[in-house]
């Protein structure tokens, strides 16, 4: 009798423990914070005077959770690094920052669909999900919180920024990396394209010819292929219209801006009230025809059309391309150093200047950043008051310096009034970037980058000193830049779940599979017929409806910027 009772209990216990392992962690995490923020906050609030920074009112320990859109950002996780400790010391606040385990879009959409949100979100301000968060009432408006708890923060914000980022008269997020108008002339030179680079030894071997036009490039590539038959002539980044936009591969911009220097202006057709898809632009298509010519001459490896980024990067680390394209900073700070240490300094890549096409100079649409990510406070936040006050700290000059440089005398000194890292900090930053993040966590704690003369000039000075080659390359390309801000071409595509968004997704799908067909076409007639088929199909699915919506969004962008 006793025996069986015991057995039943044992089996039940066994089966329950099997189940119990799963779901308990998240709950205990949440309750951890509660006692600290409710008890002490009111007492200290009364003893402090109302003026002075609001974040000093309550500095008791407090943790809020945050989802960061960008699964690559493991450097940004809070693990007691120097900058994180410094911020916590001053404000009492810690951030439990989380990244998506897989695809960010999936993670975010699942989070929104289930309504299970963290306290705060760092999300690209022009991501389609932003509209959903706001329209579904899932986030607080910054105005409401600032008026109640942090009036000082409101005074600190740049009125132009507030105007640009307000939706329905309210500011719903704080955008980081919003750059002011003088950004085009100050700070690190802007390179708005993925430049193309040529391998130094190959360039020398073919007699260092001038490469100033697209025809020069073709000739140089043919010569390279002759002398180095084993090297792939051209390497470009992966093609995926859904991820990269209509240019397909980010490396295509370099050609597109040569063949169609006035693309952005030409897309707007005012008398028809439409904003054309770039695929209707002749110059834009000529860039793809050029790629096709490369392919017909055996200068372009068609595998690149189906490569993933990692496969391309791997070959680029091995300097397996005569001419290759990548994000400029990656070439100078990552690929070139690695190539130098593993294969040899002579195989490093050097930049090709802007290319003329059909006798015209290229034009690169540079812009100051209108912002990168928005800082959202969700309705799920248990203590929005503390969070908005923390944001005031992060936005303040003090918070910016803590985030970028740390403590004066400890991690940086002021040299001629400009912050300069101590030599040991700077050395580590340049030689062991990963270790530097793990130890100091600068540029990783609050993530609220904001324009400021002090640190912008410091960044420009450091860039010139640390990266002379890259600085020279950026200067070489800079002369083709123009300011696209006033063209009103930001954030044009319709929301994905709207009827036009559905059409837009279809157009992208069509274009995505048309690109390889165009590039692999056997001759110009073949190319033209593939292109014409595409235009017919695009019109069939209703591209014009999207072009009308994009025109309206273009007008809205102009209005927000106060241009018209």
């Amino acid at each position: 009798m006793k025996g069986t009772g015991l057995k039943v209990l044992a089996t039940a216990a066994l089966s329950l423990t099997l189940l119990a392992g799963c779901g308990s962690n998240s709950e205990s995490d949440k309750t951890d914070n509660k006692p600290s923020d409710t008890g002490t906050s009111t007492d200290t609030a009364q003893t402090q005077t109302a003026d002075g920074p609001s974040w000093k009112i309550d500095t008791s320990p407090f943790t809020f959770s945050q989802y960061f859109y960008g699964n690559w950002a493991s450097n940004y996780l809070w693990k007691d690094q120097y900058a994180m400790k410094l911020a916590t010391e001053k404000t009492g606040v810690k951030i439990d920052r989380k990244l998506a385990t897989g695809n960010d879009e999936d993670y975010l959409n699942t989070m929104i669909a289930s309504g299970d949100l963290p306290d705060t979100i760092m999300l690209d301000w022009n991501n389609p999900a932003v509209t959903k968060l706001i329209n579904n009432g899932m986030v607080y408006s910054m105005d409401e919180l600032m008026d109640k708890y942090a009036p000082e923060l409101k005074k600190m914000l740049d009125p132009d920024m507030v105007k640009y980022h307000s939706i329905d008269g309210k500011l719903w997020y704080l955008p980081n990396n919003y750059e002011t108008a003088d950004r085009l002339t100050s700070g690190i030179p802007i390179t708005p394209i993925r430049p193309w680079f040529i391998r130094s030894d190959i360039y020398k071997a073919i007699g260092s010819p001038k490469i100033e036009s697209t025809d020069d490039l073709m000739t140089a590539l043919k010569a390279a292929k002759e002398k180095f038959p084993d090297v792939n002539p051209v390497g470009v980044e992966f093609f995926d219209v859904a991820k990269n936009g209509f240019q397909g591969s980010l490396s295509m911009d370099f050609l597109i801006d040569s063949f169609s220097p006035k693309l952005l202006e030409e897309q707007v057709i005012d008398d028809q009230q439409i904003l054309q898809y770039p695929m209707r632009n002749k110059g834009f298509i000529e860039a793809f025809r050029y790629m096709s010519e490369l392919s017909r001459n055996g200068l372009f490896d068609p595998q690149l059309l189906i490569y993933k980024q990692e496969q391309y990067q791997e070959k680029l680390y091995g300097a397996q391309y005569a001419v290759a394209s990548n994000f400029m900073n990656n070439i100078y700070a990552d690929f070139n150093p690695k190539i130098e240490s593993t294969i040899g300094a002579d195989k490093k890549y050097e930049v090709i200047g802007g290319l003329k096409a059909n006798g015209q100079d290229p034009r690169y649409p540079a812009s100051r950043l209108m912002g990168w990510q928005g800082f959202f406070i969700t309705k799920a936040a248990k203590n929005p008051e503390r969070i908005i006050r923390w944001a005031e700290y992060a936005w303040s000059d003090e918070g910016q310096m803590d985030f970028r440089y740390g403590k004066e005398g400890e991690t940086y000194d002021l040299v001629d009034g400009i912050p300069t890292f101590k030599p040991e900090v700077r050395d580590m930053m340049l030689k062991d970037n990963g270790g530097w993040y793990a130890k100091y966590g600068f540029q990783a704690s609050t993530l609220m980058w904001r324009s400021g003369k002090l640190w912008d000039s410091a960044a420009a000075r450091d860039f010139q000193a640390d990266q002379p080659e890259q600085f020279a390359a950026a200067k070489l390309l800079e002369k083709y830049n123009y300011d696209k801000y006033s063209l009103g071409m930001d954030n044009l595509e319709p929301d994905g779940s709207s009827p036009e968004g559905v059409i837009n997704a279809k157009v992208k799908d069509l274009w995505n599979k048309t690109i390889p067909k165009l590039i692999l076409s056997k001759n110009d007639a073949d190319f033209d017929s593939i292109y014409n088929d595409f235009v017919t199909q695009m019109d069939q699915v209703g591209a014009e409806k999207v072009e009308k919506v994009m025109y309206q969004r273009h007008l809205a962008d102009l209005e927000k910027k106060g241009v018209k």
Partner: protein
Amino acid sequence: MSSVPAKRSSLGRKFWTQRYLMLLTLPAVLWIIVFNYIPMYGIIIAFQDYTPFHGVIHSPWIGLDNFRELFNDPTFRESLSNTLVISIVKLVFGFPAPIFLALMLNELMFKRFKRIVQSLSYLPYFVSWVLVVGLMYTLLDPETGVVSKMLVHLHVIGSDTMLMGSEKSFLTLVVFTEIWKSIGWNSIIYLAAIAGVDPQLYEAATVDGANRFRRVWHITLPALKPTIIILLILSVGGLINSNFDQLYLMQNSMTQDAANVLSVYSYKTGLVSGRFSYATAIGLFQSVVAFVLMYAANYSSRKITKESLF
């Protein structure tokens, strides 16, 4: 305790005598209820214009609008036919393959060799699709891939064929890799069934002068029949489903049309574009068709062979 079950129906008595076994199945039953049955209420959003703000209960009802759009959507029709073609070819070539492997393994005299082959053949089952597709890209690269080079030398393909970027070779690759990956694992169940055959039958057949093929035909295969039928019923039910991992990973801009199967399409509309209701409608359609197919297969099998799953 023992006085309780004195007068009970036979089912109840059976249940009571097996109570400890039942208790052991409890976690699995709970698992199915919690993760399969409870979330099922979510399918009602297929009939709504779901927005997270209103939630599952309060989102506006739109009846069958999603399904009407679905049947007029050319991409949906395309993905439906892709799904069926891939599944049917997989069934035709993939279903008999493990049976052959099991029969061949069973005929091996050298037991140690048999065990080695068996272990090696089911190892690929444990390799994730991410790795398999990565390997395929490497092996099938027209410039550096070993397999590609070999096929070129054997004049199977031209020297500039991109196997991973061609709609023509897509189906072959999908079916071939699927069989390669699962053949060993799927043969285990047949080997187990073969092990249960009474050796006296084989001895008697040998005495009667039956050769090896006769013995396989008259003893081994009939012994496998129930297993084969049940697995076939299950596979027919799965015709409308496809291997999401495999197809999603093998998809690129040149094979995107061939790889667009229902599960990939529903993932793209739902999670990528955020059209939750429409994606749920696709999923619901898939489940209903799967149910009908399985029921039909089960019914016809019961009529024709007297073997059935339920």
